[in-house]
């Protein structure tokens, strides 16, 4: 009986994703009946608030939280309206209904700046509907990425394929690997999201107690996960060999590629999550509360979010302060463009510049705050929590520079991935290109700007942090274009994203739009993913030859 209940409650929301209006209405009808039934089952509510802790009420609360999420995030207007109505009905019956904690999908970006689900163009609408149909939710990440619909489309297609379409790994493995990867960066947002998915596809809840409970095969992946997340340059073909030749627990090449793509995807997605300050999903823990709103009508989050009045004033001050930042940057770009031919740096000089940038990137201090100990909850998903990003030079390790020309994504990585995990190479390729080439030719308020130089600088700076060098790039440009606060932000986000703070987010590129900052985040995310992938794939290639 319990089993049936679970099944039912899991499948309950599925049909809301249908594009057919009547199907949705029908599904909504069933849900509302169920809610009514549950409310009645709890009994007379007039007196005390529903006893928390009983199975019935917590079940109901889950449903209410989900309804709340739908009322805000469902791309279908009819469902949103019906959910609001239903919540209202329930409240009228005397049941306490939840309200969202924090405003909007991001802590860093005021909600009003982010796309409203109700006000999007038809293309974005269609992307959102697809995403909703596939996952039964429209997560905050997608909403924030909604600034850049072309990219979002490519991103969702890839993610959907990785998680739900044909592939060598079973579905619950995929989510579990996602959890492992996200946990490496203590990204509770992604962990929560995928714990739900993991259980929904029939994963064994026991595994969630820690990697030790998972099958041996997944445990072995822990090492790769660890190195890949923090020091990918240390990956050797021996690591791959250990996974591929472990007798009954060994991975096949195709499985390994799938796992590597998933790991890198979630490492970099964790970067994005922290970099954009993604808030917990409304229906997940920490996304809603049943407590009544405080008297002031503003919770802390509101204020931090820029939704309060107080902050507005500061911003304006800052704006005046920082006036001209964009112009300076544009001027520099122009200069670089022009004088490139004049002063030709010697080869030695070029090499030194790369080394200097690499070394300097090490010295960029990331941790403003004290070393934060990962919360217990998340840390159980991986081992060795103290293992983190380590700089090349600081510990005296000498790591040979990775020459991009010797092993590039376009020539080598793509072929390997596509050979072992067909179609994914193509999708990743499109996604990388989309991220790299995305531009609206604007900078803050200026139009018709060629931003390719800036984008390349960011991309190459990230690869530089991972030791990847492009022979044909003058790393002196990076110094000209990326100022210190920006470098701090990049470095933190890429190497230890969990330490990203709102202050960092705000202190770089103050005059730029939020959409542009999200754009930067996309670049960072994809560049990081490619860097990790390159190291992993190179090791696999070496194993194969």
């Amino acid at each position, binding site marked *: 009986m319990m089993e049936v209940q679970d099944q039912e409650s899991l499948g309950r929301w599925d049909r809301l994703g249908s594009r057919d209006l009547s199907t949705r209405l029908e599904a909504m009808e069933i849900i509302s009946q169920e809610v009514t039934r549950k409310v009645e089952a709890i009994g007379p509510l007039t007196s005390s608030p529903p006893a928390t802790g009983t199975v019935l009420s917590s079940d109901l609360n889950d449903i209410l939280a989900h309804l709340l999420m739908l009322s805000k995030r469902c791309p279908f207007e009819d469902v949103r309206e019906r959910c609001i109505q239903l919540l209202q009905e329930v409240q009228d019956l005397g049941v306490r209904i939840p309200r969202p904690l924090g405003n909007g999908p991001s802590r860093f970006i005021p909600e009003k700046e982010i796309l409203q689900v109700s006000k999007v163009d038809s293309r974005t609408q269609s992307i959102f509907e697809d995403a909703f149909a596939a996952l039964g939710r429209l997560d905050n990440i997608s909403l924030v990425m909604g600034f850049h619909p072309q990219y979002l489309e490519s991103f969702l297609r890839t993610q959907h394929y990785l998680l739900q379409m044909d592939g060598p790994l079973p579905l619950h493995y995929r989510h579990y690997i996602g959890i492992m990867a996200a946990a490496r960066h203590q990204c509770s947002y992604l962990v929560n999201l995928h714990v739900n998915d993991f259980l929904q596809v029939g994963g064994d809840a026991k595994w969630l107690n820690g990697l030790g409970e998972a099958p041996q095969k997944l445990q072995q992946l822990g090492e790769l996960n660890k190195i890949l997340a923090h020091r990918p340059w240390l990956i050797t073909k021996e690591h791959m060999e250990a996974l591929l030749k472990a007798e009954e627990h060994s991975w096949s090449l195709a499985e390994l590629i799938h796992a590597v793509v998933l790991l890198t995807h979630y490492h970099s997605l964790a970067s994005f999550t922290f970099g954009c300050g993604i808030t917990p999903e409304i229906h997940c823990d920490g996304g809603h509360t049943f407590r009544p709103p405080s008297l002031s009508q503003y919770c802390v989050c509101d204020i931090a979010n820029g939704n309060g009045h107080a902050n507005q004033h500061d911003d304006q001050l800052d704006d005046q302060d920082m006036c001209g930042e964009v112009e300076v940057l544009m001027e520099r770009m122009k200069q670089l463009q022009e004088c490139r031919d004049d002063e030709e740096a010697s*080869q030695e000089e070029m090499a030194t510049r790369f080394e200097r940038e690499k070394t300097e990137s090490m010295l960029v201090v990331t941790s403003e705050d004290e070393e934060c100990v990962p919360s217990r909850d998340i840390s159980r998903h991986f081992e060795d929590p103290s293992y983190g990003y380590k700089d090349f030079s600081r510990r005296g390790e000498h790591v040979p520079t990775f020459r991009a020309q010797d092993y590039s994504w376009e*020539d080598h990585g*793509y*072929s390997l991935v596509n*050979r072992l995990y067909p179609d994914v190479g193509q999708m990743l390729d499109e996604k990388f290109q989309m991220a790299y080439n995305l531009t609206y030719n604007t900078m803050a308020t200026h139009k018709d700007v060629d931003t390719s130089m800036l984008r390349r600088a960011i991309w190459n700076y990230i690869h530089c942090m991972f030791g990847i060098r*492009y*022979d*044909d790039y003058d790393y002196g440009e990076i110094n000209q274009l990326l100022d210190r606060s920006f470098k701090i932000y990049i470095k933190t986000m890429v190497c230890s994203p969990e330490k990203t703070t709102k202050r960092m987010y705000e202190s770089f590129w103050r005059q730029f739009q939020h959409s542009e900052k999200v754009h930067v985040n996309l670049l960072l995310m994809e560049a990081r993913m490619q860097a990790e992938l390159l190291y992993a794939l190179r090791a696999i290639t070496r194993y*194969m030859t």
Partner: protein
Amino acid sequence: MEKMSRVTTALSSNTISGKTMFCHLDAPANAISVCRDASQVVVAGRNIFKIYTIEEEQFVEKLNLRVGRKPSLNFSCADVMWHQMEENLLATAATNGAVVTWNLGKPSRNKQDQLFTEHKRTVNKVCFHPTEVYMLLSGSQDGLMKCFDLRKKESVSTFSGQSESVRDVQFSMKDFTFAASFENGNVQLWDIRRPDRYERMFTAHTGPVFCCDWHPDDRGWLATGGRDKMVKVWDMTTNRAKEIYCVQTIASVARVKWRPEKRFHLATCSMMVDHNIYVWDIRRPFIPFATFEEHKDVTTGIVWRHQHDPYFLLSGSKDSTLYQHMFKDATRPVDKANPEGLCFGLMGDLAFAAKESLINSDTNRKPYPGGDRRNPLFFFKKTDPTEQFAHVSSALTIYQTGLDSNNMDWFVSTAQRYLLTGKPFAELCDHNAKVARELKRPQVSTTWTMLRIMFSDPANLPAAGLNHSLSKLGSLPLMNSFSLKEMGSGLASESRLERGKGDSRQDNIHLETGNSHISNNNEENEETEGSDGPAECMFGDAELDDDDLYSMDHENQAEEQEYTLPQEGFQLRHEIVDNPSAPEHFQQDKADSPHVSGNEAEVPCLTPIESFSLISISQPLFTHHLPASFFCPIVREMLSYYAEQGDVQMAVSVLIVLGEKIRREIDDLTQEHWYMSYIDMLQRFELWNVSNEVIKLSTCSAITCLNQTSTTLHINCSNCKRPMSSKGWMCDRCHQCASICAVCHHVVKGLFVWCQGCSHGGHLEHIMNWLKSSAHCPAGCGHMCEYT
């Protein structure tokens, strides 16, 4: 002939010779190029830039162009080209975007001549014009192609492809056209004199086009290779570039080079995974014409040593070797390939093509029964004798299926007619043997007969009825243990008893068959093996008299089977246990009898009827135990044999009929596998009933649960139209009874029949009766219901 003479004139001045050889480089190579007279080769890579002379027996390093204390990135070469007219002139493309020319005629150590740093990104390719001495072309990652006049300090013209990075540029042999291939899959054609726009553009591949090469003779032909693992040949003479050949390789194509003097040949190498160099005949795109398999890592550069000699190929690789391959040493995959094809037609026809020689050597075989439409088609193109292709002429034969050849009727009727349970073992065997015989399957039929002989005893048949009832006894195992313990001592008497019985019954059919079989055996094999032993004991007269041998066998038996026998004794009759016909009162009687008859000596003091039955008990028990277990290995082999022959039906049927006699001998997985295959076949033939019976009778838990799946029926309440979530007959939403009979207004618990028109219904019987007398719906809805 004309061509040949031209070759000789071209080569006459400096005939090249040599052998397959290699030398180690210090570093991985990125590209190689030869000088015009084919005597030297230049190797370029990130950390290497050297010239080797090619001698008869070896490569000799002639010059290291990487000089200076701290070599700059200008030496880090992505590509290199030796000028084909000016033998002192080389050009390299550097990964940092520089285009460098080198003059070997310079007296100083540093041979660097000119340095062009106009490209912003890595230069992927440099190319000298084949006839214009001073014209150099470069293609770069920044999407630009630049044409340099070596007499000037900077480029004379820049071509912007307006698409992505340029991967390759190649001058056409004779005019001022060049082709450029791009990372986005495009190929563009440019006139060197018109830098403003390309003359033609087309999409050649999905994904990057890594390389292109103009045909040395056929002016309009351009070969391109891409990341999509294809090599395509385009005819550019027409208005639209037309793909005329396409070769599918197994990895992305990094380089492609036409083979000199061979119109249809080209060489390719790959960028990833695959280390071999292939030479293809583009007309035969499926199997490489020749393969060079020497390299241990990806091949990065290939070049034919002389532009008029097709037999020498040079290659450089990431594995830091430089090879000269002789064409005569190449592997010819064609030789290993079986030029045979086999295909089934829609109606079961079979087409088979094989080398003609193979077919011919086989001519005196019998013609195939049933419409042998042998239809030799000869694939056969006479080409010029210089072609080295192994011309295989194949004969194509088409076999039509006769009516019976792949007819599965026997399977269906066997499945339907076999009896698997419900009768005594021996009868089942006999029945099945008869079925098989009637279906003209003598071997199967004999197998069934054999099985009956092996696992039942002569006395069994007449006493079958009694055995049935006996089998109900709960105390049977106890009885067995008695006989077991006594085996050692009571053997002799027992065996005699049995023999006497057997003789007196005149139940000789089995004995006879058994005897003949065994005597055959004996003739063939003097030293009888273990499994034959008991059989002889059972049926062979001579051995029976030999008490020593007999008892010895039994001792072994008793030891080994102390645990298994009691169980078997019970489970032997497993299928009979299901038989509900056993009268209850027998049980009481028989329950006592074993105790009484525990000692065979007491037999005489029982009542005649009892003694009769007792004897018949002791016999089957006795004869079963010994032979049955001895036969098991044979039967196991037999079952496997049938299963492997594809007759899984036989394997499963025997498995079921023998039940516990054999089940433990075969591991569960195999059994499950057989069951699954058989059930699958049955279901394909839509023999649902048989399939279900098999499922029911199987002893594997994995199989029996098959018909437990998806047995849930979800119903909606007839009143509120909502799903009935709870069990029972009440809808917990509207608190009414669901599915009420429209006639008697009671809940229908069983067959519910309803009208599809008005959805009213009720007990099958009631509705039937109602509709006999009335045409309208019993619920009074006015619908004219129909019952058929």
